[in-house]
């Protein structure tokens, strides 16, 4: 230990004297090097064991741990102890090299002490050692304050993860002799002291202590770097703070002088010391208040935009990619005064967002114990996206009541089943639903007695303020990354016939592993089958009509031909192209009768088995085929009918299983009234093309597509208030509606496009959707593209000024837009103008062919992009933003 500390750790005997670490020039070290933690073991006010044998290990009792810091410190100690035992073998340790030491095995003899300590032996406070520690700390603190002030430390601002600060941040100063005081130094504000200090940096991947990695960096090197880069500012004592420095040059300092202490002291002092939090806190505050203005004065202009330079918020470069210190979770996303002064609003917001949302800063699931077992990552996601997510989740023990689906904190009182009390970790408990504290568990004499009998720990009084402080700190600053993970709701609406159901089904097929359950498929199969029967019915009806027509024609021909061939024609007159045999005729009559009585759906899917052979026969009948060829003359036959009729024989078989495409084509298979919703998330692979800045957190986002039937929308849809939490409204309009008419409430035939427009106006101006983004989906482009060649767009009154410039050689020129595309752009602009006139905002438009999966996928991803822009909107200046929006409006197909 001594060897090492001479070489490695800086000895700070006097504030003015510093020793420089030397670079290691020896032969490469082949074995694993122990972590070099400079430590002042003597001053550690820690718990040690009174009598490790006072109770047996297999006695399983609920144990309240007084303060988790001791646990960690104990573990750290064990490593230090090990360090001391192994340090003799160590030849030299270079301060510049990264010395990693992984203590995988805590079962070593020294380590077991700390384990027992963690289990909570009876401990007492040794006043002498506390006093000692405090006494010794005072001058040191003063010293550190000075240095802090001079060097402009941002010790609170920057998220430095070091295990000592875990759980009890406020205790940090108390253990300052143990824990290297990691504060991030921002630039060398030229003092000679800063040069001499050893910058050490330590980080932990896992604060439980199983995997420790520490790094000692040369203070010499770091300080020199600063000097070089800031040479121009040296004289004026004013250096420019750039965000690059924030993220890259952040290094930490250490004021410990733990070289001349021996590790065995720990065994000698079997005490738990709880630091006096308040005084420590004051110290820290004092330190901050002294240091902050200094830095602010020194660094006035942030040179680099924060955007992108701080991918994980206020972390030093070496910490990036590692989880944050759990005790500092509470301050995630909470900007400090310092940062606010240094940076402008946008930058601060950007940093805070990065800090809240980056993957490694998320709450690690293994810290959350639910009903006694740690969570897995998937479970955490599930939990956070459940309809009743726990608020303010932080590491700890929780209970989950399956009966009620409710959450609570767990601290000792059994809460499963019917929870009556909510217990907080300071021992107070409240009756559920009540605010007033009923009492303190530890305040009861009986409890204390019981604890004493069972040799359980009773939290000492001094731990209360610290516990409260920590919890209050955490609850005060609730990290809102949870909200970001929550379900993003997309509301899909449109006038009836606009294809919302197809888009909904398409989304199900696209994003769900099992888009339709077996039951649903069975249901859909019945619906499709009864549809096919009704299509056949319509065809048979048409056949009758055609037969009659052709008979009439025949008779006319006959009469015009004269009576010469009368006898011959007579026998043929009853047979035309559209005639069918009597058996099929009977079936046809029966089917038409049923259809007329409106009981088709009651009879048909059930009777399918019986009549399927008949349909097969019918399908092969030339008369039926002749009718089918003239299906365009049958107005009542929907356009999708041919898709099903082509495969009628197959579909009507009892073992028919509807494919996804069949379901897409089928009408009325989603619940005919009310609403339907589907939860999904975009698959990971979708990120190759459109993820611009590694927004990895996006993959966590879950979406819910809610489809609402237009039928329920009256004049005053009060219940739209229920959808105030949707993020975006996807309004669906069928492009091919422009020549369609529907009967409105007054019995007048109104153009369906105009009805859509009216509905659009209603929705856009609805108070619930104030400030809501709208994505207009112009659907059925495939149909529209064909139709517009035959039917002019100006058929709809709204589009009467559509005069496209069409070049003659259009079909030959691939670059020239088709009439359909021109029409689409025209309609999109019409809607955009309408929207802008109503709200003054921008309408997003997407072109969709709902039958094509990629098209729907693109539209929904576009919706997601809009949501992303929405979040980033404050971060772009207006001009930048408008670039985005023009890109959005100039759609590619």
């Amino acid at each position, binding site marked *: 230990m001594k060897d090492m500390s001479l070489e490695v750790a800086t000895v700070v005997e006097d504030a003015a004297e510093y020793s420089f670490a030397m670079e290691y020039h020896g032969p490469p070290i082949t074995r694993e090097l122990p972590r070099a933690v400079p430590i002042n073991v003597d001053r550690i006010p820690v718990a040690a064991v009174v009598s490790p044998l006072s109770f047996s290990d297999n006695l399983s009792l609920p144990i309240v741990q007084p303060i988790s810091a001791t646990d960690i410190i104990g573990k750290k100690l064990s490593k230090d102890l090990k360090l001391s035992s192994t340090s003799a073998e160590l030849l030299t340790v270079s301060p510049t090299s990264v010395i990693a030491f992984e203590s995988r095995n805590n079962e070593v003899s020294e380590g077991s002490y700390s384990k027992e300590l963690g289990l909570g032996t009876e401990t007492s406070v040794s006043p002498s050692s506390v006093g000692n520690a405090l006494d010794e700390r005072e001058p040191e603190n003063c010293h550190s304050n000075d240095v802090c002030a001079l060097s402009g430390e941002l010790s609170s601002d920057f998220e430095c993860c070091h295990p000592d600060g875990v759980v009890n941040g406020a205790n940090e100063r108390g253990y300052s002799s143990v824990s290297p005081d990691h504060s991030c130094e921002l630039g060398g504000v030229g003092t000679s002291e800063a040069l001499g200090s050893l910058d050490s940096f330590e980080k932990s991947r896992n604060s439980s202590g199983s995997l420790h990695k520490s790094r000692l960096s040369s203070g010499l090197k770091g300080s020199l770097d600063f000097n070089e880069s800031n040479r121009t500012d040296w004289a004026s004592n004013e250096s420019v703070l750039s965000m690059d420095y924030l993220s890259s040059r952040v290094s930490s300092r250490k004021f410990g002088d733990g070289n001349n202490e021996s590790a065995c002291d720990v065994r000698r002092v079997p005490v738990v010391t709880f630091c006096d939090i308040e005084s420590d806190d004051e110290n820290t505050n004092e330190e901050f208040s002294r240091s902050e203005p200094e830095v602010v004065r020194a660094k006035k202009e942030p040179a680099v935009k924060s955007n992108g330079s701080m991918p994980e918020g206020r972390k030093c470069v070496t910490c990036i990619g590692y989880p944050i210190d759990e005790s500092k979770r509470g301050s995630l996303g909470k900007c400090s005064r310092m940062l606010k002064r240094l940076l402008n609003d946008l930058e601060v917001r950007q940093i805070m967002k990065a800090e809240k949302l980056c993957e490694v800063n998320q709450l690690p699931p293994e810290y959350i114990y639910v009903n006694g077992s740690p969570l897995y990552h998937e479970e955490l996601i599930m939990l956070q996206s459940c*309809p*009743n*997510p726990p608020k303010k989740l932080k590491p700890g023990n929780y209970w989950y009541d*399956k*009966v*009620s*689906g*409710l959450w609570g904190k767990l601290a000792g009182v059994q809460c499963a089943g*019917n929870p*009556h009390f909510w217990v907080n970790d300071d021992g107070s408990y409240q*009756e*559920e*639903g*009540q*605010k007033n504290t009923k009492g303190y568990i530890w305040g009861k004499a009986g409890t204390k007695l019981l604890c004493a009998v069972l040799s359980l720990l009773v939290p000492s009084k001094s731990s209360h303020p610290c516990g409260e402080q920590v919890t209050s700190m955490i609850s005060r600053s609730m990290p809102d990354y949870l909200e970001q993970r929550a379900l993003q709701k997309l509301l899909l609406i449109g006038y009836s016939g606009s294809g919302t159901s197809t888009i909904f089904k398409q989304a199900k097929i696209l994003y769900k592993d099992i888009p339709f359950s077996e039951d649903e498929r069975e249901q859909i199969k019945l619906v499709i089958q009864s549809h096919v029967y009704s299509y056949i019915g319509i065809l048979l009806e048409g056949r009758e009509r055609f037969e009659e027509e052709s008979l009439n024609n025949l008779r006319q021909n006959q009469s015009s031909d004269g009576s010469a061939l009368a006898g011959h024609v007579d026998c043929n007159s009853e047979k035309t192209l559209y005639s069918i045999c009597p058996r099929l005729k009977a079936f046809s009559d029966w089917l038409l009768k049923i259809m007329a009585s409106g009981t088709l759906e009651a009879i048909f899917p059930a009777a399918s088995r019986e009549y399927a052979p008949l349909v097969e026969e019918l399908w092969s009948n030339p008369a039926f085929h002749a009718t089918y060829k003239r299906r365009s003359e049958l107005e009542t036959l929907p356009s999708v009918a041919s898709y099903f009729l082509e495969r009628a024989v197959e579909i009507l078989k009892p073992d028919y299983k509807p494919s996804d495409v069949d379901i897409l084509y089928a009408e009325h298979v989603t*619940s005919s*009234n*009310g*609403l339907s*919703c589907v939860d999904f998330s975009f698959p990971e692979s979708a990120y190759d093309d459109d993820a611009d800045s590694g927004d990895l957190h996006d993959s966590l986002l879950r979406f819910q597509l809610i489809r*609402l039937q237009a*039928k*329920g929308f*009256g*004049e*005053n849809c*009060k*219940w739209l208030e*229920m959808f105030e939490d949707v993020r975006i409204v996807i309004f669906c309009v069928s492009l091919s509606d422009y020549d369609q008419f529907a009967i409105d409430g007054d019995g007048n035939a109104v153009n369906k496009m105009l009805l859509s427009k009216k509905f659009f106006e209603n929705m856009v101006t609805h108070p619930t959707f104030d400030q809501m983004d709208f994505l207009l989906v112009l659907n059925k482009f495939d149909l529209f593209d064909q139709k517009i060649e035959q039917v002019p767009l100006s058929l709809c009154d709204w589009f009467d000024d559509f005069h496209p410039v069409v070049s003659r050689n259009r079909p030959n020129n691939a670059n020239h837009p088709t009439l359909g595309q021109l029409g689409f752009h025209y309609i999109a602009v019409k809607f955009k103008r309408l929207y802008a006139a109503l709200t003054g905002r921008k309408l997003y438009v997407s072109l969709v062919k709902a039958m094509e999966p990629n098209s729907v996928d693109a539209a929904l991803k576009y919706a997601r992009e809009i949501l992303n822009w929405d979040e980033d909107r404050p971060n772009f200046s207006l001009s930048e933003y408008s670039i985005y929006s023009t890109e959005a409006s100039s759609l590619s197909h």
Partner: protein
Amino acid sequence: MSVAELKERHMAATETVNSLRDRLRQQRLLLLDTDVAGYARSQGKTPVTFGPTDLVCCRTLQGHTGKVHSLDWTPERNRIVSASQDGRLIVWNALTSQKTHAIKLPCAWVMTCAFSPNGQSVACGGLDSMCSIFNLNTQTDNDGSMPVSRMLSGHKGYVSSCQYVPDEDTHLITASGDHTCVLWDITTGLRTSVFGGEFQSGHTSDVVSVSINGSNSRMFVSGSCDSTARLWDTRVASRAVRTFHGHEGDVNTVKFFPDGNRFGTGSDDGTCRLFDIRTGHQLQVYNQPHGDNEAPHVTSIAFSISGRLLFAGYTNGDCYVWDTLLAQVVLDLGSLQNSHDGRISCLGLSADGSALCTGSWDTNLKTTSVDK
């Protein structure tokens, strides 16, 4: 007959109907000889007064994570069922504020809930256009959902309100956005009768509330967005017994007076009114003038057991206690300490009249003891 001729005739007929309606209203005004407030004052009635301990919030029922939209009490045993936008029904013990059931609904957009008279099952309805019945004796599965014991489907619009026919566990009346009310037979799951809809005497807009007469369960009243309330006889589905005009906005809530001869309404026009079902007269208007800005809408009302007090919840978070006789606000529960933070969306009085429960958009329910 040509179309033009038909249209002309239709116009003429509409005009006649309107003039007849007008005459009816005139006639009714002539006949209206009761001035409840004036009479009460002349009889020396003074407004009800409350001491500081008379109406005290005694329990806060916390547990919902979304806006509470509806609540209902059991006839006995002091239990409350509440429906919230978080997609759950929670059954509470109002005395201990414990939750006995938390049912996750298949459709999260629930608007109404009701307790069956025997307290064994709850019904709820919402945007899924169905009324779902849950038997409270069935076990919930792991994620908190419970099998639906009966699905009443047939409405073509959202189910806005439902109430069990008193003392009949097998019958339920729902109001819906498809302009109809439906009497259901729960055992078969079929519609017994449909009120309104195609018939001209029915509501012409979404029906948003129903209330069944406590003393004569064959009669019920419905309130609708056509700003009328209609009285129905379950035996005569073809036409409404009576239509009550008066409100100038959607009638959001209707509630029968304890004696069954009157009912109260609350509307978007910010007023509550009291109607007499025998004469068809409007007896009283409860209107608190609200200065320049628009009056807050009435969301829900309830009468005290004696009928002397009318509790009315408003969109701005107020909850007025009206003296029904003198038409004066005697207390604003919203101004009391630890009142709701958001809009009062629903309120209900326990069957014995001893407690009032209010549900709010602040996700909480609060019970208040009522002494008078």
